[in-house]
């Protein structure tokens, strides 16, 4: 019951955050120098043609009027029409969305499934090779540019070994290289956080109690060490996922992956206000949702957090 209350409360709160963010996005996109009408008309266009295009797009009206018009259409579920493509913005975003979702979730899942076992092993044997590997990965993974990693993977697996496709998204095989590239970037940091969290749990007194009860090593590890290490791991993983949902622009470009990130860059270059707004709003919405889900997960993991959050709701 409290879980439901809390979720509803957080969704309402998230909606208000979303409206605030929406206003900022609307303004900032228009603050960018450049004029979409001029870009559409081309360099040779007459001034009156440009004015006509501007009036057609509604850009000659004052900002507050544009805002109200936009809000009104938004309430009807209409995100506007892309200036560049002439198609509904929602359609453009929905066409790209599955690719972004797939890439983000596969990359994060890959990162978690490598980083967490690695971090746990490193914590159990702090002086081992695995532990040193984690330290190296944390530095190397985060400091190597993603495009370089991507190109190396293409070179090895596409060019030399001819095992995997290097670009596009036609088959499930196509997701392997871009998600591996992103996961390589994420894994080191996540493993390092896991190692630190697990080492701290391992040294806590309640683990001594668990040993004193005669519990088996596996039960101690899963129940009294891992479970208590989950919060920092969840925090990092959810921030990573949020960033990926905003579009992994460089990775998408290297692998010609038709996701949200490349759509956003396109729309900004073309001053395609409705499209840029739509994509950024989607990103903001994704962040807000992930934050809510993460807080709910915290509450499920730790009863103390649960009490505080549900009191707040």
């Amino acid at each position, binding site marked *: 019951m409290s879980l439901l209350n809390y979720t509803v409360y957080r969704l309402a709160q998230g909606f208000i955050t979303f409206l605030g963010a929406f206003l900022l996005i609307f303004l900032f996109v228009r603050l960018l120098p450049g004029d979409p009408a001029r870009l559409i008309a081309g360099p040779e266009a007459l001034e009156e043609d440009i004015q006509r295009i501007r009036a057609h797009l509604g850009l000659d009206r004052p900002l507050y009027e544009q805002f109200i018009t936009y809000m009104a259409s938004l309430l009807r579920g209409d995100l506007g029409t892309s200036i560049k493509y002439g198609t509904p913005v929602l359609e453009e975003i929905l066409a790209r969305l599955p690719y972004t979702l797939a890439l983000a979730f596969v990359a994060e899942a890959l990162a978690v499934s490598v980083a967490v076992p690695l971090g746990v092993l490193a914590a159990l044997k702090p002086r081992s090779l695995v532990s040193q590997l984690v330290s190296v990965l944390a530095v190397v993974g985060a400091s190597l540019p993603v495009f370089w990693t991507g190109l190396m993977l293409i070179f090895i697996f596409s060019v030399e070994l001819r095992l995997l496709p290097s670009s596009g998204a036609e088959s499930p095989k196509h997701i392997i290289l871009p998600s591996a590239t992103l996961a390589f970037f994420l894994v080191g940091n996540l493993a390092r956080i896991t190692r630190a969290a697990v080492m701290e749990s391992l040294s*806590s*007194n*309640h683990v*001594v*109690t*668990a*040993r*004193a*009860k*005669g*519990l*088996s*090593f596996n*039960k101690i590890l899963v*129940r*009294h060490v891992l*479970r*208590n290490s989950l919060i920092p791991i969840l925090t990092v993983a959810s921030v990573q996922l949020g960033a990926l949902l905003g579009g992994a622009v460089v990775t998408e470009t290297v692998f010609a992956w038709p996701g949200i990130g490349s759509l956003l860059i396109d729309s900004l270059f073309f001053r395609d206000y409705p499209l840029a707004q739509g994509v950024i709003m989607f990103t903001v919405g994704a962040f807000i949702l992930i934050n809510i889900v993460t807080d709910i997960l915290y509450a499920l*993991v*730790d*009863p*103390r957090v649960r*009490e505080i959050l549900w009191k707040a709701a």
Partner: protein
Amino acid sequence: MSELLKVEALKVYYRLPQGVVRAVDEVSFSLERGEVLGIAGESGSGKSTLAMALAGLLRPPAVIESGRIIFDGLDLTKLGEGEWRKLRGRRIAVIFQDPGTYLNPVYTSGFQVAEVYEAHRGGRASRYVELVKDLYRKVKMADPERRVHSYPHQMSGGMKQRVLISMAIAEKPDLIIADEPTSALDVTIQAEIVELLKELKSETGSSIIFITHDLALLLEIADRIMIMYAGKMAELGRSSEIRDNPLHPYTRGLLSVLKPERKQKLASIPGSIPSLIDPPKGCRFHPRCPMAMPECSRVEPRTVKVNGRTVSCLLYEG
């Protein structure tokens, strides 16, 4: 009475980069079934390290350097982790000092107690809720029906200590090691917990090793008392003997601290416990000892029997 535990010349060392800490150095004693043995000493005397060694809960850098711990015919120093697992919680149980940190904050108290049954009887912990409620009634927990579902942060210090005691007595162990079980509690709660431990002892018949810096408490509940100083045993004797006729100058010092009517100001033993990396030569207590003789700084006292009592002091040698 028959012997349950025999500790022979036990040495527990911490191997640190700065040097070797001789936390427990050649300590020997035995424990009868059903007996309460008190171990008293200042912080840093090695009493908690001794407790962890007896429960097989030492963690690196602490290691058993030498000596034997014979528990019911079994040498505990030679046990593997798998054999220890069967012993811990079932035949040897521990009650820890700070009940707050020794409970896992993310599970209900009842689940954590039920884990003892799960570890030794199998099945899921949830099967044992009724047994846990019985235990809570035994340790006089208020509202046991509700408290099995409470998380540690919803309970007071006294309640949490009762949870730890429930874990310890769940399988009616032969030996309960209580490591400062009352030190983190309010004075009134302390008295309740001590009273409870006394009752449980007569009910379960378990032997208890009660470790504390509170000698007055031990004089009240222990059958015999071992006084530790800087990793060494200073004296071991029946509680009444320790109280009425202490042999070791350190024991006398501790007792005089307990009797403030003899002096107006708060009494204390001058000086503080020495470093166990580089302990004083000879008797470790000699720098603080009011009765020190010249040879005390050169000759390490042996443990000798005097009229059936055990003491390590040159006053009683030769």
